């Protein structure tokens, strides 16, 4: 079963390529919500109808290729073990919603893991496309073409006035959620982020920290996305988001260079201490690991830590999560066992860089 390679590797193949601004922007994502005409939404539709939709996509699209994204793998969620589901969610290939609410849920995932089409999520279709770095326009162009390709054989629920008709009123119109994952350690360290987030929220965009247990932001990683889906064209939504992201990049770079100028030694100390913790600890929880990984990544970006690849942040962020750890151990683990395995996997991974 080739599901295995999605699950065995913490890093998706596309993450190995650096995109534009990849010292700060980890990835860009375009998501389009679509529904099949004349069928109720998965929330209340009959099982048989949802099975029909799922089977239709398996019959028509399994092992098809779209552009350079080869060989769509069809994955029926009910065939997965609890741990396998966990890993796919941790890799952002499928959503927690897809796993939780529907027995007829499925996904089509390309071998490069850039495309994931979720079937019978909150909407019948959630088309997702990932790109490394800041590449919203490329992702949108690709997503539009993918959307057209799927639409050749599917009638969408569409209305001239309201646009694409989605289950949730917050997605209606374009059905577009464009988002960007950003690593903002310097803005967090200088606490500027606390002023920036409310300001951006006022502009109709949403900034969210990636939360772990508790409400602490994990690894200084933030997701910025559009909130408005109705009344603006997709191009405008993307360019508005892009301009805010570019401003954030500017602020982060600025904060980094000020930190380097004013307190280089303190910063260097912080970065090397974190490297030390990752390299030598024997027990480490996810929050501490994420904090240290973020610091090390900052060290790589600032040229303080050399000979370590940038993609280590993306990779370790998945590697340290409980689903992946348990998949690796091939059994269920207690929290303590997770902390021990996490520490040893991180050590091994850093060893590979030498």
């Amino acid at each position, binding site marked *: 079963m080739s599901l295995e390679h999605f699950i065995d590797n913490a890093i998706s193949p596309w993450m190995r390529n650096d995109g534009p601004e990849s010292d700060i922007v980890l990835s860009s994502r375009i998501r389009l919500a679509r*529904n099949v*005409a*004349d*069928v*109720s*939404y998965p*929330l*209340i*539709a009959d099982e048989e109808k949802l099975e029909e939709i799922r089977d239709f996509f398996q019959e028509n699209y399994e092992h098809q290729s779209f552009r350079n994204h080869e060989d769509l793998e069809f994955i029926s969620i009910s065939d997965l073990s609890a741990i396998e589901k966990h890993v796919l969610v941790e890799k952002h290939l499928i*959503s*927690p*919603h897809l796993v*939780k*609410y529907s027995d007829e849920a499925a996904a089509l995932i390309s071998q490069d893991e850039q495309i994931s089409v979720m079937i019978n999520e*909150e909407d019948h279709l959630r088309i997702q496309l990932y790109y490394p770095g800041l590449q919203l326009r490329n992702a949108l162009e690709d997503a*539009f073409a993918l*959307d*057209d390709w799927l*639409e*050749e054989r599917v*009638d*969408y*629920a*569409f*209305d*001239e*006035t*309201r*646009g*694409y*008709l*989605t*289950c*949730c*009123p*917050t997605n*209606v*119109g*374009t059905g*577009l959620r464009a988002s960007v994952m950003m690593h903002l350690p310097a803005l967090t360290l200088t606490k500027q982020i606390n002023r920036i987030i409310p300001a951006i*929220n006022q502009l*109709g965009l*949403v900034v*969210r920290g990636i939360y772990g247990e508790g409400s602490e932001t994990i690894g200084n990683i933030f997701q910025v*996305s559009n*909130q*408005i*889906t*109705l*009344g*603006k*064209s*997709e191009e405008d939504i993307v360019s508005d988001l892009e301009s805010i992201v570019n401003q954030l990049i500017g602020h982060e770079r600025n904060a980094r260079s000020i930190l380097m100028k004013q307190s280089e030694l303190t910063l260097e100390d912080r970065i090397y201490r974190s490297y030390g913790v990752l390299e030598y600890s024997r027990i480490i929880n996810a929050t501490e690991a994420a904090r240290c990984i973020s610091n090390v990544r900052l060290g790589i970006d600032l040229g303080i830590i050399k000979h370590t690849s940038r993609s280590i942040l993306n990779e370790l962020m998945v590697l340290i999560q409980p689903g992946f750890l348990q998949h690796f151990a091939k059994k269920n683990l207690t929290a303590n066992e997770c902390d021990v395995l996490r520490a040893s996997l991180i050590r091994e991974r850093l060893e590979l860089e030498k």
Partner: protein
Amino acid sequence: MECQECHERPATLHFTQISNGEKTEIHVCEVCAKEKGYLTYPDEAYSFHHLLTDLINFNASKIESVENDAFKQQAQELTCPHCGMTFTQFKRIGKFGCASCYHTFSTRLDPIFRRAHAGNTKHNGKVPKRTGIDLQTRKQLEDYKKELQYLIETEAFEKAAIIRDKIKALESSSKKSEAGDKS
């Protein structure tokens, strides 16, 4: 106002639950709302859901403030013929049951959309390639006709002739495809 479940955190989510004609006010914090299952989809962006419950409550209060039982009755019984969802249910869960709900509840949706989408109520983006082909042609025709008018007003007759030919070609091709559909 404090959360009625934990009595610790402030209540940030306010629901009106209607079951068997009984109205119950619920004021909870986000943590308790998640625990007690008031948030149906806790993994969707919190802020979106938050916003949505707010704006749907806003809408509900507007309807309920009208002291007219007949109107209330009518509002509650607005039911989608395709999926059976009532407007009251839609208000409570904040999700549509099917695409037909949009038509059924059409007259009540503008205030909800306006609040969720910064004042917008009309789609202004992509149109399906195949199913929306007539719509695309019509939009293109409108654009050409505007351009034609402008060109005539500015006496750019050579360019106007080109646009006029384009309009003719587009009109005849869309007629052909319509005829093709019917046969």
